[in-house]
């Protein structure tokens, strides 16, 4: 029965289409104004789905001739929301609403667009204009705090990927959301090559209703990026945006100066029964502050030139961009990120019904980096190196530009020597985009065939020269006279990697109305996706002259027989095959119903589980459109709810691999053996377990939300509560050790639960003619808990030598929580120690560790949760004020409850110490702070074991952006033939309020590395001037 109605409907549509084609043309005219009634010039007026288009004149008026079958007009203009109006007879007046508050905003969702009012799922949107304001190098930095439900932990190093979490950490295998750029599927890594100035909008799909159409890839949320395109019948408008900034470090960490260092070393030595190290303390003075030596003031600039417009048959958006950022650690020689972008987004109407879209972007990136966030990072060396030395080497008869320590003989080296000996460079050439055909089979039935692709070539080189860190330093590969130590070689490493990904998608969108008030939006299609990577790398020893200038495999002389020549390669491939469909139903603008189905096949899954089904359903009720609802204050009240299943396939096929490696960089894969004096014999072994039952990780998400607009849309509020339950968690099980050392198989075990709240509150208003205010507040909270891992446990990131792991993924706790001992002050005397549980090696002044399990012995079993690196909640507050030509905008970001593990303190006997040591325990009653135990070279109590004395509250409030601009009045510019001219000054990261004692409490990384500060690259403070020009 229902089928027959459907068919009748199709035929009626068909008939309607045929009549329209034979109808007469007619002329429509009108005027486009802004909310205040002022004319809007250069607005595009077009017939949706047809080729006819025009633009408004200076007086806002337009005239267009259309076939009479066309009943609506689409009006669009930069800064305003698109508006579709029904054609009326006579002079029409079309009032555009500013882009900020319009009810007619659309959001881009999977395989379609939806009006904001009709969305029943959970979507956060960030406009291109907001991204442009921050002028970031990577677009994620602009999402931070602006999109509720998204947590971004920014990185400090130029161009490095931040941590991006959409609605918490439900899974262990990867948290990166899927990134869809103009319909093509990419990854978060690809954000490094998108010029943020090219972005029209970013929509973040958060709940199952919106992500289920991406099925097995949707589990971590989806970031939908839409880049700019041209508009029909619009004169070319050119823009230029330029920005020049100077960056610097915000703060330094308090370390001891030379005489303080000398005194503490003398004390440490004396307490452990050694000799006095510095006889003349007074002569040491303050010495060298190594932090001053490595931090540089570094420039950053960006330029974008763009042209957009269109004729009546094609539109175009062309853009060229250049970004150059030097690093504040080590300066532009050693740390930089330079990017060139060229984009052409073109749309052609090939026939009345057939449209061809070609988006192409070429990106070239050159970058270099310094060792960071590790025990051997430049920052770690700057903090821990000997302050008594001069900057330059003044020891006769020794090579080396910079000084060396006669005392520190391992691990820590002069950071300047390290910087000098750091040589690497990377080059990325990337071409990405899409080829798309759209065919209007019927007026509202569109077929789309899209081929999205990304081809990336990455090549790079690194050089490890022979170095001199001191005659007795174990890392020295040169003798003091500059001769190479026996067995030491310099080494050059080169690699080339190609990544090629494509998504081939074919789908149909059908929109139709039944009985006037029942609108349907249907989409159905299928998709094939392939991701490949292959790499070839080589390294060779003995570069001539020990010099970067000659560092190339072709010039190095190491020969294969001594393994001075080494090669490697890898390749991988992932493939997916998917079918999807969605129905959106809207009854009278009041009741919204949406259903999604996706069937996904993944090459990664076991032979027994190749395909998976995903689905979601959503309901929305626009209360404010009900007849009974009468409120002047409330212009929109919508209730939303959704439930659905998405997945995660972050896993590789699990088969029983044979390894023939002589030696193994993975435990359990070594299969070589060296008989006698012969070269090692190649052996073989089983290196992994198989799992044919491997399947997708299943995520069920419930979402309940509310949208509210008040007082003529001046105030908008949107709030969502969600709960995600993961089952079949992809996890490496902990299996009996007696299974041996082969790589354990990934399996579907365990569950997690994440719940939270996203909120967004906006206010926009205009006072008088000249004063506008717009402000927005976001709130993001997610609580993550691992609820089952079948006794499994993943030990994650750590630090130091010997390596101490401090993060874990474990049942009953938040993913990636900090794990270690709890401290309980200091032992003041022998009686304290006697009273306490047995703690071998403890002396008065040592840290008292808590006997968590109460067994009377302090050992590894007493470790417990000591912190959580992920914030309890984050907030973002943006404010924008405009008065006449002046505009002032600011953005404040707050992260609350994120702990930081302070792991940059090396604490070897001879390394420099931190200022807290000045408050150390010196006798009974002097202090009871576990952070300041007695100081001695011999730490029999292991005061430095992983414990909460290193965990700090990393909550912070950052003034991420503050900008003051002036736009010249248009009357004056017209004489100069300019469309717009704006100057501004901008400050980024001007102020950080935090209790954290390190450089920057924002420390990005994966689940296991976020929040561990091993000397992480801090974000720079920068002051910029900029120019936005339109002509």
């Amino acid at each position, binding site marked *: 029965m229902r089928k027959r109605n459907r068919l009748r409907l*199709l035929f009626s549509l068909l008939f309607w289409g045929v009549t329209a084609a034979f109808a007469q043309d007619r002329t429509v005219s009108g005027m486009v104004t802004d909310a205040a009634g002022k004319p809007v010039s250069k607005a595009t007026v077009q017939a949706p789905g047809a080729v006819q288009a025009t633009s408004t004149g200076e007086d806002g008026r337009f005239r267009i001739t259309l076939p009479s079958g066309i009943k609506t007009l689409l009006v669009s203009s930069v800064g305003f929301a698109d508006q579709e109006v029904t054609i009326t007879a006579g002079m029409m007046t079309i009032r555009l609403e500013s882009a900020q508050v319009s009810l007619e905003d659309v959001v881009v969702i999977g395989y379609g667009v939806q009006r904001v009012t009709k969305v029943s799922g959970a979507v956060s949107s960030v406009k291109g204009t907001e991204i442009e304001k921050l002028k970031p190098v990577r677009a994620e930095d602009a999402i931070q705090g602006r999109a509720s439900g998204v947590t971004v932990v920014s990185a400090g190093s130029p161009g490095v990927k931040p941590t991006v979490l959409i609605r918490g950490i439900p899974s262990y295998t990867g948290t990166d959301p899927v990134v869809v750029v103009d319909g093509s599927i990419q990854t978060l890594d690809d954000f490094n090559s998108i010029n943020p100035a090219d972005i029209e909008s970013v929509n973040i799909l958060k709940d199952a209703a919106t992500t289920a159409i991406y099925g097995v890839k949707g589990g971590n949320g989806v970031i939908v990026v839409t880049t700019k395109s041209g508009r029909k019948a619009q004169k070319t408008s050119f823009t230029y945006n330029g920005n020049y900034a100077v960056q610097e470090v915000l703060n330094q960490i308090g370390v001891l100066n030379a005489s303080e260092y000398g005194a503490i070393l003398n004390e440490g030595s004396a307490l452990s029964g050694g000799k006095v190290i510095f006889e003349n303390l007074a002569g040491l003075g303050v010495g060298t502050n190594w932090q001053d030596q490595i931090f540089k003031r570094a420039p950053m600039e960006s330029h974008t030139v763009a042209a957009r417009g269109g004729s009546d048959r094609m539109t175009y958006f062309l853009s060229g961009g250049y970004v150059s950022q030097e690093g504040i650690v080590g300066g532009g020689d050693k740390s930089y990120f330079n990017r060139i972008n060229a984009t052409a987004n073109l749309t052609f109407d090939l026939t009345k019904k057939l449209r061809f879209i070609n988006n192409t972007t070429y990106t070239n990136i050159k970058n270099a980096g310094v060792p960071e966030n590790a025990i051997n990072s430049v920052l770690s060396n700057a903090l821990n190196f000997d302050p008594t030395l001069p900057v330059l080497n003044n020891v006769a008869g020794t090579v080396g530009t910079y000084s060396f320590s006669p005392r520190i*003989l391992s691990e820590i080296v002069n950071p300047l020597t390290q910087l000098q000996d750091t040589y690497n460079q990377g080059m990325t050439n990337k071409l990405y985009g899409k080829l798309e055909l759209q065919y209007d*089979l*019927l007026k509202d039935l569109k*077929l789309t065939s899209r081929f999205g692709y990304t081809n990336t070539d990455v090549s790079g080189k690194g050089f490890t020269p022979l170095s001199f860190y001191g005659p*007795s330093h*174990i890392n020295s590969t040169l003798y003091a006279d500059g001769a190479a130590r*026996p*067995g*030491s070689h310099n080494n050059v490493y080169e690699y080339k990697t190609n990544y090629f990904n494509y998504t081939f998608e074919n789908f149909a969108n059908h929109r139709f109305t039944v009985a006037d008030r029942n609108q349907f939006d249907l989409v159905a299609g*299928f998709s094939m996706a392939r991701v490949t990577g292959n790499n070839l790398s080589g390294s060779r020893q003995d570069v001539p002259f020990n010099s970067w200038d000659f560092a190339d495999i072709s010039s190095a002389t190491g020969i294969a027989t*001594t*393994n001075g020549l080494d090669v490697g390669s890898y*390749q*991988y*491939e992932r*493939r997916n*095959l998917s079918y999807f469909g969605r129905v959106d139903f809207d009854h009278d603008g009041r009741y919204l119903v949406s259903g999604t189905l996706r069937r996904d*096949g993944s*090459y990664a899954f076991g032979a027994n589980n*190749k395909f998976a089904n995903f689905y979601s359903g959503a309901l929305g009720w626009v209360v404010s459109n009900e007849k009974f609802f009468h409120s002047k204050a409330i212009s929109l009240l919508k209730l939303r709810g959704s439930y659905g299943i998405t997945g995660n396939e972050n896993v590789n096929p699990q*088969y029983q691999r*044979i390894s*023939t490696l*002589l*030696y*193994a*960089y993975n*435990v359990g894969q*070594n*299969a*070589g*053996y*060296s*008989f*006698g*004096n*012969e070269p*090692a014999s190649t*052996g*073989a*072994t*089983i290196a992994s377990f198989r799992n044919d039952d491997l399947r997708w990780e299943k995520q069920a998400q419930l979402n309940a939300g509310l949208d509210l607009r008040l007082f003529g849309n001046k105030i908008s509020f949107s709030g969502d509560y969600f709960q995600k339950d993961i089952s079949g968690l992809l996890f490496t099980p902990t*299996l*009996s*050790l*007696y*299974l*041996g*050392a*082969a790589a354990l198989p990934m*399996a579907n075990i365990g569950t997690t639960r994440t719940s939270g709240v996203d909120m967004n509150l906006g206010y926009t208003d205009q006072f008088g003619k000249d004063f506008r205010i717009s402000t927005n507040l976001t709130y993001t909270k997610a609580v993550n808990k691992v609820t089952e891992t079948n*006794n499994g446990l993943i030990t994650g990131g750590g630090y130091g030598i*010997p390596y101490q792991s401090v993060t874990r993924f474990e049942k009953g706790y938040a993913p990636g929580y900090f794990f270690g001992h709890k401290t309980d002050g200091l032992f003041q005397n022998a009686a304290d120690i006697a009273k306490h549980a047995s703690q*071998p090696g403890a002396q008065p002044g040592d840290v008292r560790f808590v006997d968590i399990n109460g067994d009377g012995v302090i050992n*590894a079993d007493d470790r417990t949760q000591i912190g959580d690196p992920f914030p309890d909640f984050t907030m973002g507050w943006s404010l924008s004020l405009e008065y006449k030509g002046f505009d002032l905008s600011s953005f404040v970001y707050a992260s609350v409850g994120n702990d930081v593990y302070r792991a940059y303190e090396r604490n070897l006997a001879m390394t420099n110490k931190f200022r807290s040591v000045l408050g150390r325990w010196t006798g009974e009653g002097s202090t009871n702070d576990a952070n300041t135990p007695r100081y001695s*070279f*011999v730490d*029999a109590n*292991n005061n430095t074991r992983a414990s909460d004395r290193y965990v700090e509250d990393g909550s912070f409030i950052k003034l991420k952006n503050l900008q003051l601009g002036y736009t010249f009045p248009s009357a004056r510019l017209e004489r100069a033939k300019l469309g717009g001219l704006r100057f501004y000054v901008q400050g980024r990261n001007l102020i950080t309020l935090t209790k954290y004692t390190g450089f920057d409490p924002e420390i990005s990384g994966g689940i296991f590395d976020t929040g561990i500060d091993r000397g992480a690259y801090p974000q720079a403070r920068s002051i910029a001037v900029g120019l936005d020009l339109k002509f």
Partner: protein
Amino acid sequence: MKKATYILMAAGFITLSTGCSKFIDYDPREDFQITADDYLKTADDYQKMVIGTYSPLQWLYANPVIGDVASDNSVSGGENATDVLGLQHIDDYVVNANNFYMTEAWKSCFEGINRANYLHENKAKLDFAGKDALYGEVYFLRAYYYFELVRMFGDVPLFTDKRLSASDSRQYQRASKADVYKQIETDLTEAIRALPTVNSQKGRITKFAAQALLGKVLLYQNKFDAAAAMLENVVNGPFSLVANFGDIFLQTGENGTESVFEIQYSNLSPFYDWSNPGRGQGNLAVQMCGVRNIAGNSPYAQGWSINLPTKELAAAYAAGDRRKAVTILDIEAYKTANPAMNITYLVAPYKNTGLYNQKYHPRKGETSGQIELNYLNNYRTIRYADVLLMAAEAFNRASTPNDTKAQTYLNRVRARAFGSNVNNITVTGTALRQAIWDERRLELAMEGDRFFDLVRTGQAAAKITGFKVGRNEVFPIPQQEIDISGLTQNPGY
């Protein structure tokens, strides 16, 4: 016409959907990965898998260190109290179940056993020339891994029929020590039957190695009669004592006339991975025992001052015993004696004894790659002198003792040590037994057997400070294994 379009579309869709499902099939060969399905199809595959079964021997580099550090021979040393923490705990007799070195030994031995089992499991799959002898090596290796386990941990899980798969996790409990020893004897007996007396490559297991190991295994079970008979085969084998004791431990002395079984290491495949330091072809234990920051013209290279001989061990050598200088490097004395070498070094910062393990001290030019990880020094697992002393003990403790034979064997070792017969032992009975035990210490010091000898002979409590009878005879089962597999822990841990 439009209807036709719909039908076409639908048909196209269905065709594509069904035709494409192959798109997501996966074959590891796409990634050039060899899987078990491709393997054990030629004799060469079997040969390679046997070599792979040898590999875990190299991972056990720390076991000899443990054997001395746990005894009265040496202290853990290191940089400070937390450096090589697991060894510190072993040295200080506060070892707990979370000991890194225990967990490594446990995992490595079981990996070796699983590798051997995989070959055992697939024995019938292919026949080829030399298969029987090749399998002799496999069974020897399985016995060796089980012997390391049983003497360190006592009762351990016992499985011999197959390589375990993921579903076998948690399925095994500890088998009794007696059962494990029984299996070791079975494997070694089979190995002795199958193995040739001379093998194709130096370092490959021979019949004599299997006989020596079986003799040792029998000795550990106090089966002295059988041990004596078994060891006698080796004593009468083609071995001889190297005249100059020190030569044994030089590169040129590797796999020499005194070598019955050596775990092979090499610097010919440089290795760089600090995160899995024992998984290359080099011997990390060598780097461990070196003098810190030693510089000058001596043959020695720098190390980490771990496994430092005790002064008490040094004092145990009688005057004229040439083994003392070979076993122990008194660095300060050496520096004074060789002023031309311009030696400088850093005094061991923790538990300094001033003495270093000379037998395995890192030497210049004997490493490559990441210098710490690639020392070539073989671990002299069973030397002919060891066989002589074991045989001497077996004859002395046999149901019908043969002290004359015991004295002869013992005195062959002593004569080499002193360069003459004047120090020959003439006592008999229990005095001879003690003399043999003491001789084992002097001859084999810093070669990793002392702790196990003290336990085996019941001397541990008397000789080792902190040793508790009923507890310290074995080490704790790794806590991880207790937690995962629900194994029982050894008493006292």
